[in-house]
């Protein structure tokens, strides 16, 4: 059974990682839990975790709220099939753009001297110093989040829009006869249908923002300083720039444990939807 192939590709590296994580860096030899304990003293790791948390909250939050609002707005205003198909096509384009290419796109737009964003700002009457979108800490965070939102807000939109289309139309009509206004219609008629899908979207966006790597690597490479050095980029640097595979494995195992616990909790609710 090819399941065996998957098992070897996934399980063998796991044991290999455990082996690595129990050894000392460079000198080798059994280190016990030294690498695991060191994580608690690692201040760079702390900074990286804080940056990651901020990124996850910002990107996931904006995507979900905007996507939800947009799904409701389009559902209510765009009635023609052509309009809906156009919206669908429009939104599928950023989603299927490779993250690396998305990074390139925004890198082009955010060039400080002649990038289109700063030029437009200048035309709108902003005459301060050019904004350094990628090389000042706050703005760098904004830039990488904006790419994520551009790419993945459509995902939230499309999933929730599909959910809204599943609400039986006669129920909406009945609600209108009963005098349900816009908000009541959303709160009592549509939201119950969307709840499982919202959960699904949250799980997907949470895990994806948690492991973000590609477009950040193109846009800021974790900089300036460590302001956008998210978990994946930090692990990458330790493992492949400092060649400390031992410590990196220990950190990776922490992540596996945390993600597994989260998945176990989420899958209880998700499996009903998926199976």
């Amino acid at each position, binding site marked *: *059974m090819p399941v065996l192939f998957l098992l070897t590709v996934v399980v063998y590296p796991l044991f290999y990682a455990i082996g690595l994580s129990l050894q000392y860096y460079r000198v080798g030899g059994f280190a016990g839990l030294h690498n695991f304990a060191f994580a608690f003293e690692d201040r760079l790791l702390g900074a990286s975790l804080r940056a990651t948390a901020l990124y996850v909250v910002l990107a996931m939050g904006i995507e979900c709220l905007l996507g939800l609002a947009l799904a409701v707005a389009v559902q209510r*205003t765009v009635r023609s099939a052509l309009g*809906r198909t156009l919206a669908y096509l429009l939104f599928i384009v950023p989603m299927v753009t490779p993250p690396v290419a998305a990074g*390139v796109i*925004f890198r082009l737009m955010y060039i400080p001297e002649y990038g289109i964003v700063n030029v437009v700002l200048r035309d709108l009457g902003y005459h301060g110093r050019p904004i350094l979108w990628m090389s000042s800490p706050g703005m760098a965070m904004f830039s990488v989040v904006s790419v994520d939102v551009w790419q993945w807000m459509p995902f939230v939109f499309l999933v929730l829009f599909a959910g809204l289309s599943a609400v039986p139309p006669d129920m909406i009509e009945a609600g209108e006869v009963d005098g349900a206004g816009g908000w009541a219609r959303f709160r009592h008629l549509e939201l119950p249908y969307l709840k499982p899908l919202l959960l699904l979207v949250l799980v997907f966006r949470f895990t994806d923002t948690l492991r973000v790597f590609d477009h950040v690597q193109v846009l800021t490479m974790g900089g300036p300083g460590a302001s956008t050095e998210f978990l994946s980029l930090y692990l*990458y640097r330790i493992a492949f720039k400092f060649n400390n595979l031992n410590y990196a494995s220990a950190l*990776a195992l922490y992540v596996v444990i945390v993600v597994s616990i989260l998945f176990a909790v989420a899958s209880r609710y998700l499996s009903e939807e998926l199976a």
Partner: protein
Amino acid sequence: MTSADRAAEPCTAPGRAAAAPAARPRRRRSLLRGLVLASLGVLAGVYLFPFAWMVSTSLKPTRELYLQPPSLWPLHPTLDAYAAALVGAGDWVLLRNSVIVCLATVAATLAMALLIAYPLTRLGVPPRFRRGLLSWLLSLRFLPSIVVVIPIFATVRTVGLYDQLPALVLIYTAFSLPFAVWMLKGFLQEVPQEVEEAALVDGAGRWRAFFRIVLPMISPGLLAAGVITFALAWSEFLYALILTATPRSQTFSIGVWSFVTEFEIIWNQMAAVGVVSALVPIVLLLGARRYVISALTFGAVREKA
């Protein structure tokens, strides 16, 4: 759907006297509708603009890059940047690598996914094992790749596959399998058991029944799964970054990225490779657009557009 019954609760809305057929609320509503439509139009512009800007930059000759103010469209459009990047910088080799890796991944993924999905849906597999396997596959989707890549890197290096295309094919296959299995499982379930049984009664063997009856019936699913696998493998960056070192095995994503890291970025060439790398999955997935959402959510959402 579990929440359907809750939705059926009578709604307690504020407006009791809905009988008022006043013209004013209706006009206000259509005004609101117009506003929403207008802002949706603006949003569509915002969404498309970044892409258009990349295309426009890629068509500009180098002189026009630094115009103040920059022109929206190239004044003298040229394909020079494409030629310089693909031929001059030798990125066509990476393009070729990418195509090889993606095609091999698609073939391997489809074959393996069928080998897993078919027994799961057709043979008497205990339901507990079935559920367990499917949810384990799903969990692989959520594992951050950087976590897996560290031991994989170490393993690949010891096995001697470092900087070789087969290593990438192996990894991509392993990580496309979960969604491919889920997707094909859905399609296989839609083929009625009776059709196959009829073929068996008529004297066809299990293999023959599979190749002659089942496979043609799920061919749209195979095509969609193949296209999506191709696009995902095409876009992949992290494994390629870590498991390759030279143009012998680097994929096109790496080519795009290496334009960014160079000391002086040549913007129009960078835009050109960006366009090429984005265009392939966009064209492919617009063809398979009906299945994109369904594949990305492991079949939880069925989209019809």
